[in-house]
């Protein structure tokens, strides 16, 4: 036991006694992540504000009397031009120099005012460029909003009792239409993202250190000095895996903490309108499962590193495993069916499901128990394999 403690302590000292290492392992990724996400969030926010503030340029063909005023009343900042050259106007839309074309029939006013049953119903055609943000916004505001209001206003001139034409409305006065458990809704969002982030954070945090811990020691010739010490090989393995668990655990706590703390900045100050808080039971379940996942991932990284002779080789071995685990983490994002109990016995995949289930409060005690048990058992099996590999002089390249 003291051997495990000593090995673990040495590996932790390697990281925690080195300021540069502390910065590069724990803080640099956070700074980069928060920096990039904040930048993206702000840029996206600014782009949205810019679109909202943009003065729409609208070209109208055969504009009926009063329509430009109607349009100005709805969207006071828009610039309205009479379209004389159709080809030129469409070219301007294509190039982003104009945002929307509205084409009225030549005798639109007569067609509307002189309408008799059986006549052709006049059609207003609008044209926009969906690949241009300004054009798309103008289409959304004018084509589906202002023109609908214009239609209603013309209709009211034709029909005395507008209400007589309204068979029903949908949610015209129903502010309480959304019925959801705020915690579950928040958990649903977290549950989609968290397994994916946990995989990235736990695995990536341990990857660099883990490969150096085993393959790096072999490469530098420092592993042999441990192997001739009066300590069991299994103690060396456990010491290293536990140290790696602690490092990846600490790094993931820092990463998650930073994610939560800087979330407003990272989403550009937007409000998700969800309750993203967790109750004590969820926190306890998550904490225990995350420890088990950190144990499993650390064991996987150490196992892969054992078979490499250099850190470079170990990194190339670990990368496909990382990708595989990442894909398994992502699959739960798109799962809609309730998985069977047996699925919770599939290592790695079950942890993503259970994480999601804890956050949505849908996981059963049985499912949680199976996941936790399988994760620990699988991790323990891997530790056994690593121990055997440590005994092999061929694997250890000694």
């Amino acid at each position, binding site marked *: 036991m*003291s*051997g495990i403690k*000593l090995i673990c302590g*040495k590996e932790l*000292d*390697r990281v925690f006694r*080195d300021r540069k290492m502390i910065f590069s392992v724990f803080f640099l990724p956070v700074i980069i992540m928060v920096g990039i996400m904040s930048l993206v969030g702000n840029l996206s926010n600014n782009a949205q504000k810019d679109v909202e503030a943009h003065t729409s340029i609208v070209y109208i063909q055969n504009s009926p009397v009063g329509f430009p005023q109607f349009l100005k009343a709805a969207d006071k900042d828009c610039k309205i031009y009479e379209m004389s050259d159709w080809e030129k106007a469409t070219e301007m839309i294509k190039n982003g120099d104009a945002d929307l074309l509205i084409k009225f029939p030549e005798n639109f006013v007569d067609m509307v005012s002189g309408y008799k049953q059986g006549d052709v119903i006049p059609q207003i055609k609008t044209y926009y460029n969906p690949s241009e943000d300004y054009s798309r916004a103008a289409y959304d505001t004018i084509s589906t909003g202002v023109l609908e209001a214009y239609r209603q206003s013309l209709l009211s001139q034709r029909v005395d009792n507008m209400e007589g034409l309204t068979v029903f409305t949908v949610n015209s006065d129903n502010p309480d239409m959304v019925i959801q458990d705020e915690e579950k809704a928040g958990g649903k969002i977290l549950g989609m993202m968290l397994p994916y982030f946990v995989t990235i954070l736990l695995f990536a945090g341990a990857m660099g250190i883990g490969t150096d811990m085993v393959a790096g*020691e072999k490469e*530098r*010739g*420092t592993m*042999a*000095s441990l*192997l*001739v*010490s*009066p*300590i*069991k090989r299994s103690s060396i393995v456990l010491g290293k895996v536990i140290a790696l668990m602690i490092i990846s655990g600490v790094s993931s706590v820092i990463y998650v903490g930073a994610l939560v703390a800087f979330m407003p900045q990272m989403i550009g100050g937007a409000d998700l309108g969800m309750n993203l808080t967790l109750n004590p039971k969820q926190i306890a379940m998550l904490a225990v499962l995350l420890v088990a996942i950190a144990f499993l991932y650390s064991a996987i990284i150490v196992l892969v590193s054992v078979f490499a002779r250099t850190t470079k080789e170990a990194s190339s071995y670990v990368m496909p495993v990382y990708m595989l685990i990442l894909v398994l983490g992502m699959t739960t994002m798109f799962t809609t069916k309730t998985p069977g109990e047996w699925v919770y016995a599939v290592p790695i995949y079950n942890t993503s499901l259970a994480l999601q289930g804890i956050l949505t409060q849908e996981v059963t005690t049985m499912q949680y128990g199976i996941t936790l048990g399988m994760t620990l058992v699988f991790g323990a099996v891997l530790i056994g394999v690593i121990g055997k590999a440590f005994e092999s*002089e*061929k694997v250890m390249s*000694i």
Partner: protein
Amino acid sequence: MIEIKNLTKIYKLNKKQMKESKTTDTLKTAVDNLSLTARPGEIYGLLGPNGAGKTTTLRCISTIIKPTRGEIFVSGHEVKREPEKVREKIGFLTGDIKLDPQFSVDYMFNFFGRLHHIQEDKLAARKEELFTYFGIKDFSHKKIKELSTGMAQKAAIAVCLVHDPEIIIFDEPTNGLDVITARSVTDYLKKLKAEGKLVIISTHVMSEAEKICDRIGVIIDGQKVAEGTLGQILHDTNAEDLEDAFFELYRHQKGGK
């Protein structure tokens, strides 16, 4: 005491190793039915050319690798059955074994001392003794990666001796060292011998073997071809010095070529 009985070590070669060795055989016998006994209070030298099996023998003794056949007893403990007990008794050092460059000499000394369950007060006293002898006190706070090769080697020797082992196994102890450092190492080996320790070294430097070894075992192609004191070997081979004796033995082993 070290007692080796009919030690054979066979390596399985991979394709790359077969190509490097220019052989089609998948197996390579590194040590072939070797037996020897080394006793406390002597420096035993394994002498042989590169690839003779010296390092393999020392690695089998120090439990890093396992014998294919035969038995090795270290202070009464068999290496395959009681490897941890064997490791408690020995201090093993080779040019391939290095200290972690991220840590200071001081840290590594304490770390290995604690792995050997040495009490803190005894550890401090041992550190004072060894660091003073090897002149590494002044740079004990420095990281290994900041030290010169000679300094790092001295530090490695001090760490290897932290637990005051009964048996000291050095593979090419002065390899790569400057004359002054090499002398301090060989002097220390003599000191250990005077204290009643068993020192077993491997070397291909004839003059080193002549100067410090009480008994020499000559290994060629994994087989022991001669063993005895320097005088006995010179007598048996009718040679003037160890180098002549070695070439005589080598010529004989290779069938007179």
